[in-house]
């Protein structure tokens, strides 16, 4: 499709602006003016042309409102439409972040109440709504943990332990936090091996970072033992809450021995992913750690008023302002709509849907860690198909032809040819059955007509794209000489 620069023609404009209604009394000194006669190279097109451009682009996207999106660990559930309207109410969207607190009483109360809800759901006492995404939540959590150790004169603790199945953000966060990653092995059941954890903890342990349920979709059954090992060594336990969709109203991270966790509101709490953001990654922690939370926190005064405050021992600030507030509004709306029983139904149905798919696909794909029920997701291996020359990547691409998004592939790293499938609770039995049919059909094609899979996708706006070429002949901006007005 043509780029927006290629539909551009000098003189066109997509907005009607009022004339300047004040006298122009001053001019910018010539030496400070933009080069090139002031040209920026922005497109020139009418409102209608721009709309048509973006609408045509949009039709090339798969998305939750179109069809199932079983992307493991991403919790692609339905995004309620009302929430989009609510976040756009003028009194919410039009509020400047630096107004005095008393002029923002509505937003502050909403944030305070959301914080209370998240504490209740996880069992913790302290909360920051500031982190913009899960990875920033991880950074926030590790900074809290570092501050805690430092406050106890144990600044040397700089090792973050994590299983080999951890999300990539976990080790990257450790590096960003000036810590060292120490890998802990998984056992034959896909769970953290407590014996290996015992070997790895020590006087340098800052934290054990664990996703629970883990990235295989399995609950860490020996969690009490794991968190105790870390506590006894003087470390703290961090839960990556990416998989919290399995636990709403079912179990609380705090009770399992975790000291701090982040939640992904754009996963568990139905806020839309927006094609890669904005997310929101609130951090929830024990009362003991709350004094280190980032600046600012929302507090309730004795007189009932709610305002921003700064903790004396805060490790600092993560964003210029107080977080992805528009996302918080949507998560609040979700929790208010569902209440306690509704949230539990979310997790119950997420578990049933995942286990149903796992059972239906058991005869067609390998499942190296099938030792009983999974939680909200599960990981298959495409090993059987790979032996026929059909890789997991091919299976993923073929699913696109059947109208589904692909599962998360090649993750976690401990499963060969991994296919990580998370249906979420908002898919119906009928839709799950259609997905099963597609997967079974692809398994059959891999045997009988493998070229159908290896040539896939063919029913998509473009065919399989050359990623190697994209790196080799790097082109990340439209060259200025193409269809140009600069």
């Amino acid at each position, binding site marked *: *499709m043509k780029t927006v620069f290629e539909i551009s023609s000098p003189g066109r404009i997509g907005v009607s*602006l009022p004339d*300047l209604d004040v006298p122009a*009394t001053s001019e910018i000194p010539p030496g*400070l003016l933009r080069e090139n006669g*002031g040209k920026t*190279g*922005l*497109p020139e097109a009418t*409102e209608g042309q*721009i709309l048509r451009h973006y*609408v045509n682009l*949009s039709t090339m*996207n798969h*998305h939750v*409102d179109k069809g199932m999106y079983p992307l493991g660990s991403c919790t692609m559930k339905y995004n*309620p439409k*009302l929430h989009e309207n*609510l976040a756009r*109410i003028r009194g919410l*969207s039009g*509020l400047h972040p*630096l107004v005095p607190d008393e*002029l*923002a*009483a509505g937003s502050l109360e909403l944030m305070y109440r959301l914080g209370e809800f998240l504490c*209740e759901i996880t069992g913790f006492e302290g909360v920051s709504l500031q982190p*913009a*995404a899960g990875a920033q939540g991880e950074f926030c959590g590790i900074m809290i943990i570092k501050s805690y150790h430092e406050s106890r004169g144990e600044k040397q603790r700089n090792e973050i332990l994590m299983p080999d199945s951890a999300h*990539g953000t976990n080790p990257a966060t450790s*590096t*960003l936090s000036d810590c060292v990653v120490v890998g802990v092995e998984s056992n034959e059941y896909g769970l953290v091996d407590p014996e290996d954890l015992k070997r790895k903890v020590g006087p340098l342990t800052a934290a054990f970072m664990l996703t629970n349920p883990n990235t295989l979709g399995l609950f860490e059954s020996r969690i009490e033992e794991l968190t105790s090992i870390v506590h006894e060594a003087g470390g703290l336990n961090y839960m990556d809450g990416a998989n919290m969709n399995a636990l709403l109203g*079912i179990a609380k991270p705090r009770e*399992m021995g975790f000291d701090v966790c982040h939640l992904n509101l754009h996963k568990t709490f139905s806020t839309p992913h*927006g094609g*890669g*953001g*904005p997310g929101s990654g609130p951090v929830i922690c024990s009362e003991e750690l709350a004094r280190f939370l980032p600046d600012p926190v929302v507090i309730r005064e004795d007189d009932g008023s709610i305002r921003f405050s700064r903790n004396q021992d805060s*490790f600092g600030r993560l964003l*210029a*302002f*107080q977080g992805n507030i528009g*996302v918080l509004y949507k998560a609040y*709306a979700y929790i208010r709509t569902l*209440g306690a029983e509704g*949230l539990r*139904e979310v997790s119950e149905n997420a*578990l049933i849907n995942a286990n*149903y798919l*796992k*059972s239906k696909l058991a005869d067609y794909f390998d499942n190296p860690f099938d030792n*009983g*029920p999974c939680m909200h997701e599960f990981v298959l291996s495409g090993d059987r198909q790979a032996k026929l020359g059909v890789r997991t990547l091919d299976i993923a*691409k073929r699913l696109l032809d059947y109208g589904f*998004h692909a599962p998360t592939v090649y993750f976690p790293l401990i499963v060969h040819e991994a296919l990580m499938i998370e249906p979420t609770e908002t898919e119906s039995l009928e839709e799950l059955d259609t997905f099963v049919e597609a997967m079974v059909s692809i398994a059959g094609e891999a045997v009988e007509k493998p070229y159908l899979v290896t040539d896939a*996708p063919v029913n998509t706006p*473009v065919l*399989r794209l*050359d990623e190697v070429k994209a790196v080799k002949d790097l082109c*990340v901006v439209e060259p200025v000489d193409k269809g140009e007005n600069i």
Partner: protein
Amino acid sequence: MSRFIPNQNEHREKMLREIGVGEFGDLLEPIPEKYRLKEKLQLPEPISELGLNREFEEFASRNTGAELACFLGAGSYDHFIPAAVDHILLRSEFYTAYTPYQAEVSQGTLQAIFEYQTMIARLTGMEMANASMYDGASSAAEACLMAMRSTRKQRILIAGSLNPRWQDVIRTYLKRDDFEINEIPFLDDGSLDLETAGKLIEGGTAAVLVQYPNYFGLIEDIQPAAELIHGSGGLLIVAADPVALPLLRSPGDAGADIVVGEGQSMGIPMSYGGPYAGFMAASAKLARKMPGRIIGRTTDRAGQTGYVLTLQTREQHIRRDKATSNICSNQALMALANSAYLSLMGERGFREISSQCYHKSHYLEKKLLEIPGISRLFSKIPFFREFVISLPVSSIAFRDRMIEHGILAGLPLVELGEGAMLVTVTEKRTRDEIDRYAMAAAEICGGGTS
């Protein structure tokens, strides 16, 4: 079941039979009994769609600050947003998709962000840009880390005239014993103290970071800072205000190596602080040091043009602890808002917005300077959209009195003096609002020093 869950009890029973368990509770077998909640969560009773609407209207009505004429800026700005921007954002195809991992069914997002990268690169005068960061401040912090990675030097100099909230974020991201952050002071006229900068740079500095225009709205020539840091083998990072760029010399032309900034001014509502979108642009030689997603153009098996996530070996899901950053989700939809806004505004519209911000802020400044006792701080240097005034009364008291007049007057900067106030005028403020501001200010300051 709620309106979000299609499977009813009959479906659940059928599915549990297929799974081979008797009841739902059997699926919880991996969770030790002691951790399974016996009580339901203590949350308010569920509310209807209608009830939730009312609850939100009530919250919104208590945000009285949203009703005032906004002359407050300092990093978030009340700009006009064309209606078409939101119609684009509300396409389910964009907002209910995930990160474009499967490129063949994500060409809409990918091409839109490729175009966004192009617009950001052109506006800043740089060769490339990434697909967005969380906000301007975290983008600035990541730029500092990037500069340290590519120069292998561990000292950063940040201008004292950089937004203090951004300074805080940088200090958080760079909080390590082996990293050094020094502040370059500003002179009495508000400009960067280049002489001190020259001394601080000695002995190995990764980058100098300046804001353009600076926190006080001052338009400084950044080329001398570029020459200074380049002379010692470091990089110049510029935190640029995108709205100023259609008028001002681009940071790239002035010698910047990395340009970061806040995209909120380009089609994103203030929304009490977020979600916004940080942008990051750089010279091509730094591409492989960049954090975050980058979209690249390529071809498919039939030779058609298409777009993919590229240079992924920099990223956390491949490189893990060796990644250039831990960032995963960025602010893709907000970047889309930026590109939709810039497409609609276009070459002429965006320059007009920039120009009106310039003239309207100068109109207010002139009116305020007519009031006895009010002067402009740093008055020797030209400004864009924001300026600092010195009031004959306390700026906090002034702000509070102005609220009674229906005006958010600005941000008190008490660190510059009891009467110092940062005042912002965007194109959205009418002449009538600006005149009302000046009249109310005259009334409040009329009694002389209080």
